[in-house]
Each structure stands twice: as structure tokens, then as C-alpha cells.
């Protein structure tokens, strides 16, 4: 089994414990070894709890929502040149919870698209905390369409608690708008690379992430429902969210082992917000590497690659 880098301290401790256990069986093994063994086992348990326990997972969920975490506009600023923002769905309004436009990536034209949370209360209210309405998804559809017609690769950035559950959103067809995004993305003959920067919240996140390659920052999350929503459905108690977060296996490492993410991009110590420049430099390196590989495929191969990628997802047996 592959050891992910953050698991390594635990694996090292476990190996030392095994070695001591072997030694303690030898005749003449002193009480000192037994004490040391006990101490190490307690340390391993604590470490395991920190990494994989409710608290460890919940800490990651909170990191993924950190107000200072790099956003889509930060990523656009760091990775792209000549950004021209395109706005509006041409039918109802411009939804600031999704941003996108034309830009150059290492000199070559691309289309870029992502959820956008705000900085500070006022900006967050304007951007609806990164929760799009149908018109946001219809703006995204426009940009996906542009990328296909002009043969520009599509880079997307995911960071949303989910699509907005509200009156207007329902009236204007939130479900249909998300469904159309899923179908449009799955049909594109240009490379699509998606990076989950923060929260990958349910269908509202997936609507921008039916990609040839899905990358996740180390402390990003990706889940079928928010942990609060999951807890309130299962136990009628939203405060049990940490438990739900753990049960859903929503951390980047877990989503990677489920085969849903293709790569986990390590963050600077303490999280991306501690050193956004370095975090986005690593995102740039990973996105560039995957895009270069995808550029070698022809249009039909690109589309087929994406179809097969998602076609293979799901866990079942046949009796």
C-alpha cells in the first residue's frame, strides 16, 4: 500500500513499535522496553486521531473553508496572463458566485472558470458565499461553449459549499442548469483540468469538475453533501457534522484513494493560506503538467478520455 506523505510519521512510529514488540519477547527484556512500548503506542494513537479522527478530519474541513484560502481569482492572478473577465448568462443576470473568462496560460489561450467566494462580509454577501444560482451555471455553460468552439483548453477551479438552495434558484431551474453543465463538460473536445481549491460541495461543485483530470489541494474537500447537511439528515443534528465528515471520507487523500481525484497537491505547512504564493506555484506546476499531457491527445481522444474516466467510477459487484 502506498504511504501518503502525511501518513509517514504514523508509519514510522508503527515500525518502531513492531521492532520493540519483537524485542520485548526476548528473554531478559527489561521493563524499560515495555514502558517505551507503551509510550510509543500512546503517541501513535494520538497521531492517528489527529490525522484520521473526527477532529483531524474536521480540522481539514475547516481549513478548506478558511477565509484566507486562495480563491479562483487568486489562482487566475497567479497562473494566468491577459485575463478578460466575461460576465452574464445573457438571459437573467451576472452571478458573481462564478467567475470566468479568457486568458493566457504560459502564453497559450485558455478559458478559465471557477466558483468565487468573497473576501470579507460585504464581498461575501455579493458573491453569496460562493453558492451559485442557475444563472451562474448558465454563464459557465456559455464559457464552456466558447472553449469548445475556439478550441481553447478549459481550466476550472472549484470552491463552493454547494449550489444555492433558495426560492429564485428553484424558480429558475437550479437542477436543470447543473445537469446541463455536466452534459456540456462531458461533451467537450478540448482538455479540461479542474482543481479543487477549497470546498468541493456536492453537485454545485461537480458542475464545474467533469474534467479529464481532477486535482485537489491537500486540505481541500469533496463530498456528496455538506457534513452539516449529512448530519442533519442522518441524525437530525447538524452539530454532529465532524462525525459525518469523517464517515463520508471527504478529505483530498480519501477522495484520491477513491479514484475520484487524480492528484493531491501538497500545501505549505499549516495550509495554503499561510503561503498562498507557494500553494499556487504548486497548483501551477500540477495543472501545467497535466495540461501538457492532455494536449498530446486529439479532440475525440480527449472526449473519450473524459467519458472513460467517469464511466469507471462507482463501486459494485455482480452476483
Amino acid at each position, binding site marked *: 500500500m502506498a504511504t501518503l506523505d502525511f501518513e509517514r510519521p504514523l508509519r514510522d512510529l508503527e515500525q518502531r513499535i513492531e521492532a520493540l514488540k519483537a524485542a520485548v519477547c526476548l528473554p531478559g527484556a527489561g521493563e524499560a522496553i515495555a514502558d517505551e512500548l507503551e509510550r510509543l503506542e500512546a503517541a501513535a494513537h494520538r497521531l492517528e486521531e489527529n490525522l484520521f479522527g473526527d477532529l483531524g478530519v474536521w480540522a481539514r474541513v475547516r481549513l478548506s473553508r478558511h477565509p484566507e484560502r486562495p480563491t479562483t481569482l487568486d489562482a487566475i492572478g497567479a497562473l494566468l496572463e491577459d485575463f478578460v473577465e466575461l460576465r452574464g448568462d445573457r438571459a437573467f443576470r451576472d452571478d458573481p458566485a462564478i467567475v470566468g473568462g479568457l486568458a493566457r496560460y504560459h502564453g497559450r489561450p485558455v478559458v478559465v472558470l471557477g466558483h468565487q467566494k468573497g473576501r470579507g462580509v460585504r464581498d461575501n454577501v455579493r458573491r453569496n458565499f460562493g453558492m451559485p444560482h442557475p444563472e451562474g451555471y448558465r454563464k459557465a455553460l456559455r464559457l464552456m461553449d466558447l472553449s469548445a468552439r475556439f478550441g481553447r483548453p478549459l481550466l476550472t477551479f472549484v470552491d463552493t459549499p454547494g449550489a444555492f438552495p433558495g426560492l429564485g434558484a428553484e424558480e429558475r*431551474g437550479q437542477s436543470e442548469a*447543473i445537469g446541463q453543465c455536466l*452534459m456540456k463538460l462531458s461533451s467537450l473536445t478540448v482538455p479540461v483540468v479542474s482543481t479543487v481549491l477549497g470546498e468541493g460541495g456536492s453537485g454545485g461543485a461537480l458542475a464545474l469538475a467533469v474534467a479529464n483530470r481532477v486535482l485537489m489541494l491537500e486540505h481541500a474537500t469533496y463530498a456528496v453533501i455538506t457534513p452539516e447537511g449529512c448530519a442533519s439528515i442522518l441524525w437530525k443534528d447538524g452539530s454532529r457534522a465532524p462525525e459525518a465528515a469523517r464517515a*463520508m471520507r471527504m478529505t483530498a487523500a480519501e477522495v484520491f484513494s477513491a479514484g475520484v481525484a487524480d492528484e493531491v497537491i501538497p500545501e505549505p505547512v499549516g495550509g495554503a493560506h499561510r503561503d498562498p504564493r507557494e500553494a499556487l506555484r504548486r497548483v501551477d506546476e500540477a495543472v501545467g503538467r497535466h495540461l501538457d499531457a492532455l494536449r498530446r491527445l486529439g479532440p475525440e481522444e480527449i472526449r473519450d478520455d473524459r*467519458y472513460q474516466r467517469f464511466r469507471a467510477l*462507482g463501486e459494485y459487484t455482480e452476483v
Partner: protein
Amino acid sequence: MAPGVFRRCDGCGATMLEDELAAAWNVCPRCGFHHRMTPVRWIALLADAESFAPIGEALRSTDPLGFSDGQTYPDRIARSQRQSGESDAVVVGDATMDGTAIALGVFAFGFMGGSMGSVVGERLTRLFERGASARRPVVVLSASGGARMQEGIHSLMQMAKTVAARGLLADAGVPFVSVLLHPTTGGVAASYALLGDVNLAEPGALIGFAGPRVIEQTIKQTLPEGFQRSEFLLEHGMIDAIVPRSDLRATVRRVLGLLTD
């Protein structure tokens, strides 16, 4: 079902014989309320006798997350299988409708709220792929609370998978008629279910992205009467028609004829 058993209509509260309700395809003869139907009954209503040939019948859920919410996921599956007589929340297969070859899918809402996990996603995907390769129009009757939480991210991915397959059908120029039953919400509504070439709904069905309780908690208001019901969706342009159960077979057949003849 046992003869001579009485039941109460969920719409008007009138008491009637179970047999009387069943003979009317579970539609109340007094008030027209559409009660839920099992896949077996739906297939009997829509497909020619003996014509249904299941696809992916052998598929079974695994427990990829080792999920437990007090009850383990395998236990929950086993209990749903016992209670519903179904292996999972959707039944799909080839059928004929008045001699016309179709690919038919029907949800079993009684199986974990019709939730879409890997088995549901795989069966629907195979159905769309079958429709595309054999040029059989696809008809799916959806009734689902959404993606199945117990399979976590794997369930979410079924949204992308089913929609991609629905896209294959569109590229092949083969029709998809989506029939929305009560209720169709969450990850099923937000994937293939509102992407029919023609979207039909039963009267009074709840159809939406978010459930009414979630919306009320978010906006801190009580929702207006009839919000997210079929009639609301028709008014807001999300569906083409509301079709009573007694007319569904004739309507689907007419639509398919007009698109394929």
C-alpha cells in the same frame, strides 16, 4: 395483496378497497391523488406483457466507505431488499411499448428513498448506452431523494456518469423521455432527470434541487403553497406537460412516434 383490505387515500382521506385502488393504477377514483407504484406495476402499465428484459440485474452495492449511521450500510441495504423485494433503487431493461422497442427505467422510491448510489448510476448508464447503441428510445420514471450519502463521493460521481451517457444518447439522435414522479430532488434532479428531450411529470409531484426543508432553513421563510410541485415547474418552464397516470402510456407513445417515425 390480500383481498378485502381497506386503505385510506393519502389525498382526500376516503376509505376504499385496496383492490379498487390497484385497479386504477393507484390513482384515487375520488380525488385523483397519485399514490406511489412499485416498478413491477409501472412495467405492467407501460410495457407490453412479458416484454421486459432487465439490464444489470446482477449489480449489487458494496460498502466502499464502511459507512454506519448507527446501522451499517450493508444492514440498511439488506433491510431495504427484504422490505421492497428489489435489489436496489432502480430497475432498468429493454421493453416494447405497443410493439415499439424502448429502453425503460423505473425507480423504486421505497428502496432507501430511491437514492442513487453506484448500482443505480451503473444501471442508468447502461440503459442510456443501450439506448444509444441499439437505437432504442429511453424512458426513465424517476422518483428519488437524490444521491445516496452512504456511498459518499462515489454517489456524487454517478451524476456525471449518467449525464455523460445521456449525452451519448443525444449524440446518437435517439429520444429520451424523462418522467418525473413524486418526489424527484437532489442529485437525480440535478443530473439526467431534467435533461429529457421531453420532460413529463405526474400531477402534484415534488420536483426540485433542494428539499423544501433545506430551503426554508436557508431563507428562514415558509415556502408558498405549491412551491416545487409539477404545476409550479410547468409554469416556470422546466417541464413540457403534466400527465395523469391514465394518459401516460398513450402520451409517451405519441411523443416517441413523433420523434422517431
